[in-house]
């Protein structure tokens, strides 16, 4: 973790917080039915839940309730006092809500699911929860668009499928199934276990934190139900640990180790076929199962998952592909090839990762390894999508997919389905590939760009959503703009402009992006050779300006989420980050968002200077009104005045489209022309009259007097208030560049960009790292992401912001920097107070992560956030310590006895409980990556065990609470002792 200071996320910002809290509301609606499931329990729980509920709800409420915000803002004291009251109110309200829950949730479920009749309460164990319906919805969308055709067969074959296909109609059927399943009694008993457990809880304080878990757990019950049905022997386990599906895996492995029994296989199959079978499970089975049939099945099954879900596990998939048996590789390969065909992004990500993960192998084996070969195949561009496949093939393919998955079934798990589609060879997964692929880059340079770089006004307008000429600001320059483009097109001989010719050729698929990334990385390497930071920065800027020549292009930033084309690198904004020998640097990149970067036409280049008049005099605040008007006209006239009116006339006649494009010639231009017309005559200089002569001409007027003292005072005041007055240090330009508030930077760069007026313009940033192995960071990112989603799912309001890592090779990559959504200047007392909660939430989140991942580098909190806080009124010393609670941290939380501090500890507990419930999901990520890896984080043999131990599966919740207290205590102690490792459970951690 050499560079953890940049690679790990910051504590969250309040702004982000608000947005983050939106979704839970929705999910709550979906989860309500779990209360309905057993009203008794719900009612019983009402009282005990009070505290928990209030904790759950305070965030959304706080953000929704302006009054409360005001309370917070009034003063910290008030805040502390008000807080419990307000919470109380909320709680009461919540209680109210709670009692109303049944009808409400009934309604809700009615909307989503047609089966919320009285039956559920009678058959709690089989209640299809909304969660389930959600899953089914999703899987239907992605996997089974052809379901109608498919499901009847399924329903005949396997109960699970039928369950999925139509819930309402099969209620009766299901009860049959239930009776068929011998596990039913177990479930009920388990249920009662739970109930009794719950009834125990009210007196526990730790309960608060558990409530959300439980609700969500209940909402997940369908999972459990279905799983339980397959493993009666597991019921004795604690419910918490049971939440995950992993035990099944063990069972399966065991079973397979024995001999394959059809009945057990069918459970497995049912599981596989169920909608609950998600990517995470698939990956886990793929990794753990030694049965080629299972592997092959899962390999097929991968096709059915949403692309994004599967993509999350790309490092794992590829690592398995590179380092595991041939069977696993063969199972994954079709899916990888399919996705590579479909997506340039996927292809490149795969190629990069394959390179990176192969690098640990011995050099001799590396060349012939599977990973290297696949990489070569991907990069060879042979995996082009077939453009001739049209939509109706799409349909077919889905079909094919589901078929083939069944085929896989037969292959691996066979038997009870007894159905074979002979006409669908196993190959289908690889061949039909084209389903998801977009039309491909072929038609890419679409009609818009056809006319070449100087399209007529019409074409140009279509290309960009907003026509430059329609913008008022552009008015003044429109003379040049339209004239230029029209003229340019007219002037350009078809042969002489290679661009025009080229548009008809199909660009190589991966080339542009590869070259783009290569250029960026090469810049990094070259920078490393320069001695001083100033030289590095200067070189960086000039190198980027060369790169700029080649933009816009069909290239994108791999760290970004949205589809876009990179159009410009504001090269002067780039900054070399502090580092001695290596030269990581941050660049800002202007992009235009688009539908699909592969198929949307690449934006047309707009010359740098085109922006100029847009920010001419009218945008700059001029001293005097008179000055403004004169300045304005002179500004806009500037470019044009070079031509005499005769010349102008000449140019008009050559500009054919002039007449059609009335709009381009706004009044100011015409006015300008007139001015210029007069300009031919002697006293033309309307401006010069204003300049020197003005003194005499104005003499007659009343003189205006100003006090010298005022000027001097204004100067000092302005200096004090201008944020940009801190002087740029040429030795360390990054400091200023990074301190600038993000919004400010965006505004500034947007103003200065010729593309800035486009509505789909965005500013992104990326840190390019050369000479650093980011694979470990990528792993950390995945773990953080997983924990984040677990906490989201379990509705624990822990806030973390993992930020994207893209590994390009074993010693290079890109990082998405976290932007300081909150600036220093916004960070007033008010904001600070409202940020307190967010602070606590993210602090707890990162504390947990630090603990779980044993982050030794204390820079887990990103510098961005670090300096936000360090320049806050309280001057928190973030950069010097991480999880370790400094006294400032504690101060912010209102002291050791403060509500916030208790909240902090509670959050940690909640988070830990949630995390351990899904421990396998986290462990899996790390475990798979350990394969064949030489990463330092895997040094020693006990990495996984150590990680597992830190989840403390064996502890009761009370014990867990004790552990949290201990952890916090330990870190408190480190404030004074400065000892880092005061944790009891320090082992060889992974970070």
């Amino acid at each position, binding site marked *: 973790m050499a560079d953890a200071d940049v690679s790990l996320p910051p504590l969250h910002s309040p702004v982000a917080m608000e947005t983050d809290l939106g979704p839970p509301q929705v999910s709550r609606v979906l989860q309500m039915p779990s209360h309905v499931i057993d009203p008794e329990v719900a009612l019983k729980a009402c009282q005990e839940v009070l505290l928990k509920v209030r904790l759950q709800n305070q965030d959304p409420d706080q953000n929704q309730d302006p009054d409360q915000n005001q309370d917070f803002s009034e003063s910290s004291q008030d805040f502390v006092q008000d807080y419990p009251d307000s919470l109380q109110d909320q709680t009461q309200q919540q209680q109210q809500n709670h009692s109303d829950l049944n009808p409400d949730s009934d309604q809700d479920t009615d909307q989503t699911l047609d089966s919320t009749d009285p039956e559920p309460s009678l058959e709690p164990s089989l209640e299809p929860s909304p969660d389930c319906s959600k899953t089914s919805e999703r899987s239907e969308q992605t996997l089974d668009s052809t379901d109608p055709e498919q499901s009847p067969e399924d329903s005949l074959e396997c109960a699970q499928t039928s369950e999925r296909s139509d819930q309402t109609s099969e209620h009766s059927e299901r009860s049959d199934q239930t009776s068929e399943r011998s596990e039913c009694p177990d479930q009920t008993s388990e249920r009662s276990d739970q109930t009794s457990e719950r009834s125990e809880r009210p007196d526990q304080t730790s309960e608060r934190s558990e409530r959300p878990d439980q609700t969500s757990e209940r909402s997940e019950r369908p999972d459990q139900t279905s799983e339980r049905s397959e493993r009666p022997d597991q019921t004795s386990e604690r419910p918490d640990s049971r939440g995950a599906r992993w035990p099944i895996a063990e069972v399966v492995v065991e079973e397979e180790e024995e001999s394959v029994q059809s009945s057990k296989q069918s459970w497995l199959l049912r599981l596989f076929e169920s909608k609950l079978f998600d990517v995470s499970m698939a990956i886990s089975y793929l990794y753990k199962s030694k049965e080629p049939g299972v592997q092959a099945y899962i390999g097929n099954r991968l096709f059915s998952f949403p692309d994004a879900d599967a993509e999350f596990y790309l490092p794992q998939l590829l690592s398995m592909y590179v380092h595991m048996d041939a069977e696993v590789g063969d199972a994954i390969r079709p899916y990888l090839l399919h996705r590579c065909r479909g997506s340039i992004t996927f292809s490149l990500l795969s190629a990069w990762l394959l390179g990176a993960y192969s690098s640990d192998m011995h050099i001799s084996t590396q060349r012939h390894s599977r990973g290297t070969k696949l990489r070569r195949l991907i990069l060879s561009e042979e995996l082009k999508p077939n453009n001739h496949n049209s939509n109706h093939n799409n349909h077919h393919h889905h079909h094919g997919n589901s078929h083939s998955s069944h085929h896989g079934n037969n292959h691996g798990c066979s038997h009870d389905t007894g159905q074979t589609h002979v006409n669908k060879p196993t190959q289908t997964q690889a061949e039909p590939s084209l389903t998801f692929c977009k039309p491909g880059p072929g038609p890419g*340079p679409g009609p818009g760009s056809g006319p070449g770089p100087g399209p007529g006004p019409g074409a140009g307008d279509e290309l960009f959503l907003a026509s430059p000429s329609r913008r008022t600001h552009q008015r003044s320059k429109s003379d*040049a703009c339209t*004239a*230029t483009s029209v*003229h*340019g097109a007219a*002037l350009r*001989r078809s042969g*002489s402009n290679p661009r025009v010719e080229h548009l008809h050729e199909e*660009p190589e698929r991966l080339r542009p992006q590869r*070259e783009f990334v290569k*250029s960026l990385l090469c*810049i990094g390497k*070259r920078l490393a*050779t*320069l001695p001083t930071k100033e030289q590095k920065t*200067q*070189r960086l*800027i*000039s*190198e980027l*300006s*060369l*790169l700029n*020549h080649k933009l816009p*292009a069909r*290239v994108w930033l791999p760290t970004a989420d949205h589809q876009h084309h990179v159009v410009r690198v504001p090269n002067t904004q780039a900054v070399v980050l502090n580092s001695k020998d290596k030269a990581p640097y941050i660049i800002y990149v202007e992009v235009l968002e688009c539908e699909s970067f592969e198929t949307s036409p690449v934006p047309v280049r707009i*010359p740098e*200077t085109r922006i100029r008049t847009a*920010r001419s005099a009218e945008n700059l605040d*001029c*001293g005097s009104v008179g000055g403004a008007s004169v300045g304005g006209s002179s500004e806009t*006239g500037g*470019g044009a005045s*070079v*031509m*005499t009116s*005769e010349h102008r006339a*000449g*140019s008009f006649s*050559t500009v054919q489209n002039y007449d059609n494009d009335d709009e381009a010639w706004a009044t100011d231009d015409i006015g300008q022309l007139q001015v210029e017309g007069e300009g031919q005559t002697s006293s033309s*200089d309307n*401006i*010069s009259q204003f*300049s*020197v002569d003005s003194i*005499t001409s*104005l003499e007659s007027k009343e*003189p*205006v*007097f*100003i*006090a*010298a*003292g005022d*000027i*001097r005072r204004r100067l000092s005041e302005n200096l004090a208030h*201008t944020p940009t*007055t801190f002087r740029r240090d040429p030795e360390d*330009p990054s400091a200023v560049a990074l301190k600038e508030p993000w919004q400010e930077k965006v505004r500034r760069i947007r103003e200065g960009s010729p593309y800035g007026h486009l509505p789909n313009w965005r500013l992104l940033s990326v840190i390019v790292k050369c000479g650093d192995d980011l694979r470990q960071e990528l792993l950390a990112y995945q773990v953080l992401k997983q924990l984040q989603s677990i906490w989201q799912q379990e509705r624990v309001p822990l806030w973390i912001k993992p930020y994207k890592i893209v590994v390009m090779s074993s010693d290079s990559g890109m990082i998405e920097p976290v932007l300081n959504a909150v600036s220093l200047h916004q960070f007033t007392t008010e904001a600070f107070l409202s940020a307190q909660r967010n602070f606590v939430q993210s602090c707890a989140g990162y504390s947990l992560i630090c603990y779980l991942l044993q982050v030794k580098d204390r820079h887990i909190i990103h510098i961005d956030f670090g300096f936000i806080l360090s320049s806050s009124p309280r001057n928190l010393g973030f950069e010097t310590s991480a999880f370790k609670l400094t006294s400032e941290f504690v101060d912010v939380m209102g002291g050791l006895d403060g509500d916030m501090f208790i909240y902090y500890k509670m959050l940690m507990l909640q988070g830990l409980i949630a995390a351990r419930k899904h421990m396998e999901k986290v462990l899996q990520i790390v475990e798979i990556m350990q394969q064949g890896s030489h990463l330092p984080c895997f040094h020693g043999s006990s990495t996984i065990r150590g990680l597992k131990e830190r989840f403390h599966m064996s502890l009761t919740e009370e014990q867990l609470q004790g552990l949290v207290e201990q952890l916090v205590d330990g870190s408190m102690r480190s404030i004074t002792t400065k000892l880092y490792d005061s944790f009891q459970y320090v082992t060889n951690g992974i970070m």
Partner: protein
Amino acid sequence: MSQVEKKAGLLRRTSSSKKPLKEKVVLMYDEIFAKEDPAKNNPRFWDELFLMKVNLEYLESKLESVDGEEVQRIQDNINALFHHCVQALAEEHQIKVVNALQTLCALFRGVHQKNKSASGFDIINMLMGFDKAEQRMKDLMERLDSLLCGEGSESLKSLCLKLLLCLVTVTDNISQNTILEYVMINSIFEAILQILSDASSRGQHGYDAVVLLALLVNYRKYESVNPYIVKLSIVDDEPTLDGMGMVLHQALTEYNRQYKDKEEENQGGFFSTLTSMVGNMFIADAEEKLSVQTNEAILLALYEAVHLNRNFIAVLAQSHPELDMAATSTTPTSTTPTTPLGTTPPALDMMNNPELPLDPNLQTSNLLITFLKYASIVMQDTKDEHRLNSAKLCLIILTCIAEDQYADAFLHDDNMNFRVTLHRMPMRHRKKTIDKNVPSRPLVCAVLDLMVEFIVTHMMKDFPMDLYLRCVQIIHKLLCYQKKCRIRLHYTWRELWSALINLLKFLLSNETTLLAKHNIFQLALLVVNLFNMFITYGDTFLPTSNSYDELYYEIVRMHQVFDNLYCMVLRVSTNTGQWKEPASKVTHALVNIRAIINHFNPKIESYAAVNHISQLSEEQVLEVVRSNYDTLTLKLQDGLDQFERYSEQPKEAAFFKELVRSISLNVRKNVSLNTLSQDILLKEFSTIS
């Protein structure tokens, strides 16, 4: 016998007068200058002619010797020659093309040399015939265009450009060259642009192309519609503009390098030590030796680009690592399908080069920096007329730049810091130290440095008033931008203030001599108004509050100069005379400065008296200044932040006419016959087909 033969052989070479020994081609020329149609007896005459090596001298002298009556007689044949030349340009056989190009060149030259007094129409008639002229020229231009844009030999392209340069410069005054009217109608602008946009052709022909363009733009600039002006002003293709920028950049860099080499040569030995000891006399000599012929043509091209094309401004700031720019392709991604972003990233070879240029001065550069360095060299010595013109043009270009919003934006961009080492004139009172530790600053600092440097170094008897005016105006324009955009530049304004005050001092002390030639009040007014800008609007652009105090300190310290100036302008304005009006403007402009002086001087004196200090320290004075602002009232002067925008016409028209004339002469001289009759070229083509 053998002796005679030898003699004959010798004679053959030296004299073409002996008929039997004439070259074949000469004989053929003679046939053309005979009455009869040369093709009458020999139908393949023209074919054969273009297979012969051209004898330019003979052809030209022949044309020259033709007198009025003969013209009538042989006009048809010359027309035919011209016609066939044009046709031969389309030949596949490259030798014919080469010969045709050279013949055309000779035709244009010869005709003009002959008909110095004749009108353009006569020339057109003689070469092409009135009725066919339009068609002939259209054909010619089209052929040239396709040759320039085609895939053909580079030497051929080069020859085409030479022909065009030759055609453009046949007259001293480009606007009198009536043939160019056809070049206006049949534009080769696009061909020139294409040459500039392509990296390899730019490397070989960029210079000629740029010079040609600069000249064409100046054809009847002020009288008629020049399509080249129109077209140049709207070019927005960045690779092309960048290409143009690179050609200019390279030419200027080359000049700077040559200068530096010479300078080092001179500094090297005993001589330099001697100069520093003996003084100015020798330095002047050394300077003479240092002078490298300025490159007015390139400067003119830069001017036209900056002045006409608003997109070109961006090119000025286009920074490149100082590498061989010709090697790196600037073609946009989409142009080369195989290497959209260049397979070898730019400067990859630099990586392999063990000796990476780590000299901070060599790190990054851009056209503007190179231009500033060039200007600093050119401005050193303005005695020579060429240099004076060059310096003037440099200042005009800087004026255009300073007026441009976009240029101002990047000049003041805090993220674009450079170390710009300007060349400084060695002077008696200061050592010529090459300041290696120039801080890295926004580019505008370099511009200001250059202006200050000019102000300080040109206070001489032969006062370059015009240059001074421009210089001060440039500063004013930059200040206006800073004021408007509230940019607080961290610049040592003190140097500027003291330079300006010294300038005023110089004007005062040389009042009588200067007034004989110049309106010194105009300059004085501009200078005083610069101070007024600082005084009235200092709050909007000064970098520190201290700097405002320092301004007052400087004014008070040098109050004698301002007092004297006031006395002088008051005296002149009370007299009747041509200077009454301008002088009175200066008196009005001085109101605030005088108020400051009158306000603070007594305060400082009393402070000294009260504290019994004879000589106040700077800090003490500043303290007095600080504590006495509030009792000082200033008058708000209007229009301080307004300026007269640069316009070429009518003020500069004469200058540019002269400049273009001088460039034309120069180019004509350089497009010598030698470069045209390239043996290499013929060798190259003799192997082809």
